[in-house]
């Protein structure tokens, strides 16, 4: 029996008085790969945000490692799982300073991120010179890859990924999806409309729509 990582139990989401998700239940165990799809406004992103406590269900519960997520556990979950939002705007300034800033956080100080940075840049076809550019001048695809690289450098193994390949071109979509899905021990819940994520052995969940 694999360890349970996250469980949604009869979760409802209400936007402005309209129930967009009702009675959603999902259990994700360690090593599972789940891809969620559905029309925009269907509440997918909100579901993903609940995993790190940025949103809360209107009814129902969300648990992490068998424990219902509350304020105290949310802070702990943020330290051991990775959430990437679909908005790639993570800050201002030189890319290198942004990356160094993340690894200056007390929680990340001991992570040897410099060792793997070059490797990831190559893997995702980014030039070393990207590091010296102003983050805001990067293209959508470049920003997305920088955010992915920072997340990978953190070395965590549980990922909540919201449309992280949307701005990438065809072959890069494949490469990123392949990279995440090929790690046996990684637990992944990804929202995506890209075919690159729909592979054998992946649980596909459709919410909203008919």
């Amino acid at each position, binding site marked *: 029996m694999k360890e349970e990582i996250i469980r949604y139990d009869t979760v409802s989401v209400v936007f402005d008085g309209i129930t967009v998700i009702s009675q959603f239940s999902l259990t994700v165990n360690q090593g599972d790969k789940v891809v969620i799809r559905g029309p925009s406004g269907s509440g997918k992103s909100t579901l993903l945000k609940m995993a790190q*406590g940025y949103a809360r269900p209107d009814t129902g519960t969300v648990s992490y490692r068998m424990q219902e997520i509350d304020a105290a556990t949310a802070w702990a979950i*943020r330290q051991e799982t990775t959430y*990437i939002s679909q908005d790639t705007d993570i*800050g201002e300034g030189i890319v290198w300073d942004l990356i160094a800033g993340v690894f200056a956080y007390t929680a990340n100080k001991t992570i040897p991120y410099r060792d793997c940075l070059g490797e990831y840049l190559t893997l995702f076809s980014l030039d070393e010179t990207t590091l010296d550019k102003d983050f805001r001048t990067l293209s959508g695809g470049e920003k997305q890859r920088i955010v992915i690289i920072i997340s990978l450098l953190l070395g965590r193994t549980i990922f909540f990924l919201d449309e992280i390949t949307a701005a990438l071109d065809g072959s890069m979509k494949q490469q990123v999806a392949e990279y995440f899905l090929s790690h046996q021990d990684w637990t992944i819940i990804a929202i995506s409309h890209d075919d690159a994520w729909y592979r054998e052995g992946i649980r596909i969940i459709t919410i909203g729509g008919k």
Partner: protein
Amino acid sequence: MTTTDITITGLFFAFLLLAIPVFVMHKTRLPMIQETVWSFLRMSVQLALAGVFLTVLFEYNAPVLNVLWLGVMITVAAYEAVRKQDVNIRKLYLPTVAAFIIATVICLIYFETLILQGGGFSEARFLIPIGGMLLGNSLGGTIIATSLFYNDLQRNENRYVSALSFGAQRKEALLPHFRAALKSALKPSLGNVAVMGIVFLPGLMTGQLIAGLSPMTAISYQIALMLTIYTSTTICVTLSIILTSYASFDAYGMLKKELFQKR
């Protein structure tokens, strides 16, 4: 040490100047005439009352009365600082008042004891104007900084959330937003400081010069006061953001959105 009073006739001529802005507004159909006239009338009444009040205050020069008046000034300043933002006033009022009190009291005590050596802390004519200048200047900075801080956080929520998901503590995730806010509060003061004495003579100096004090006295007051104001703005902005943040975030570290809805 002679000074010339402005007579009632003189004041009349001062008010007559308003005819020019009013005329321009009328010709260009800029709808600010009513506001202009009303603002200056209100100002005149307020200043007249302040004149009467200060006369009494200086006459009695009772420490209790001085401190009480300072309290009124602080309360009004804090009220203004909160009112000018679109926030729920009750929730953020107390922390803002606390920030004002702490910043102003610390800087006033410092100014009155260490800078103005031997100068009376209980002297109304030192306490009230200097307290007023500290408050007035911190007020501007705090309004700019706190509204920028919370607007920035709402507009760029994703940056904050990303920082949290990258493992930042709330403090660490808020730091870039705080930096931007403090910078915007202090930048105008620095700009003023840079051209001071060349482009314009600040109010305090002008007042002292008109009162017949030597330019050197006026200058030393001005230097000391600018340094104190800069420091008190920094303390006030920092404390305001720290103290209001206790009321503005929930236990999950998320901004309480209902606080910032425009009513």
